């Protein structure tokens, strides 16, 4: 029961984190107009941060599949 509750909690955390990441991306935190510093490996700010956010989202998707309430269920359940 406790494990099920934990799974539900982690699933919610994944959902909230993903939504927050998505919303933040459309603010000046990720897309400040006319700004390309600080850069990493020469990459301008919006690009490297955009890549980072995308990678985090894919990793989050992986965890979401682990904690999804129906991840262990078969289709017929």
């Amino acid at each position, binding site marked *: 029961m406790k494990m099920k509750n934990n799974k539900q909690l982690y699933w919610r955390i994944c959902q909230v984190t993903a939504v927050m990441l*998505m919303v933040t991306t459309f603010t000046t935190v*990720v897309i400040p*107009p006319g700004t390309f510093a600080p850069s990493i490996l020469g990459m301008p700010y919006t*690009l490297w941060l955009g890549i980072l956010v995308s990678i985090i989202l894919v990793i989050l998707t992986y965890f979401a599949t682990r904690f999804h309430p*129906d991840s262990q269920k078969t289709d017929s359940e």
Partner: protein
Amino acid sequence: MIQTLIIIAAIYLASLVILSLLTRQKEKSTSNYLLAGSKVGSVLGMFTFAATLFSTFTLIGMPDFFRTHGVGSWIFLAFSDTAMVFLIVWLGLYVRKKARVNNFKGMSGLMAQCFQSKFAGYVTFIGAFIFLTPYVSIQIRGIAIFLHATFPEALPVWGWASLMILVMLLYSETGGLKAIIYSDMLQGILLLIVICVIGYNCLSYFGNMEAMFEQVEKTRSELLSVPGPQGLFTPQFLFASFLAIIMIPFTQPQVATRIIIMKDNNSLFRMAIGVGFFAIVIILPTMLIGMYGAVKYPDLSTADFISKVIIDDQTQSIAAFAIIGLIAAAISTSDSQIFALGGELRSLLDGEDKQMLKITRIGIVFFALVALVFSLISSDQLVLLARTSFAGTALMAPMIFTGIFLTNHTGKVMPYATALSMFIFILSLLGVIPSFYFGIRLDLLLFIFVSATGIINALLNKEKEPVYQV
């Protein structure tokens, strides 16, 4: 190069023939012909999903978008795609469950069942037809123009376009969705390898990433930030595009079908993660190609720029692979879209399966011909036309979600609201009415309107009907 190209083209065509013959069924039914038996594993699923999603639009459109509008292109597509895969995990199981309960044949039929109204099915079908046809056409047109520019003596634009349509019709009509899925795998791998090699070569031209961006800064520093040199990437444009793109798995039938035909839930999950990685890996090189173009060919047309970067600046064998990769990219997306329109038609037909399937196959040929005609008259704005397609089909998302998440029909409010929104959107595309109101894009306003209608509808029906449970 011609000799190498002919050899690779022959191998490619032979592979398509073999795949279509291997997957050919003697007894065709809706289940095995249109839905590939619904037993697709995660690896095959990832490649077919990716090849359907990433098309000419990725290989030609995105480098050109990076070259013209700058690094905001990453947020426009790559970020939106990774958000989309999260949504597949979040909502995909609900879609699969509803599809299974209602004996899924196509999204139009599913909506007709969910709303207990044929009108809902017609709205879905017409929406898919209107907004997918231009998308199919631009794939074909993009490659036909490119091939004509590269080999001006060989065939006219309509000749290349007709040839591609013929190839895709031949193997998809023979082997059905299974043939398309296997050829998607072949095309997806080819596309990925070609784009990575060209991207690497573009980066090598500068030596490293730092040197590349230094050059870009000297040439056109506006490319290194939003909104880009032409001011396209405003937060509003990016957000509206984001909404349109993340809805693709539920609103574009060729993609929705791929969620439904996965073997089981875990295969779907693994497929989603794979597509997320695939998106990053494939869009990164398009950025490199775009930045290379921004420095070397800032003023060339799209076709000339692509021709230079993937043919003139590459070794002969890579250039030959790239040309086949481009054709494969266009074909893998277009065949899925045309085939999906056939599936949508089938889902609205009632009658003996064999007879209905015959009508569907004739329908597929008809859709292909419409796409061919449209490809000869459409605009060259590859990415923006694709975005219009995404935005148009995204207007169906609230109706589709209402249909999926509410247990019983919720009246005809949603189908009517969706039809009205699509009609208004089309009027704006035709220039009859403005596309901005109070400084807000019309597609965004319409999406908000249909979503609000869906939410109010759901709340009003809440007491009568419990929310759908998986």
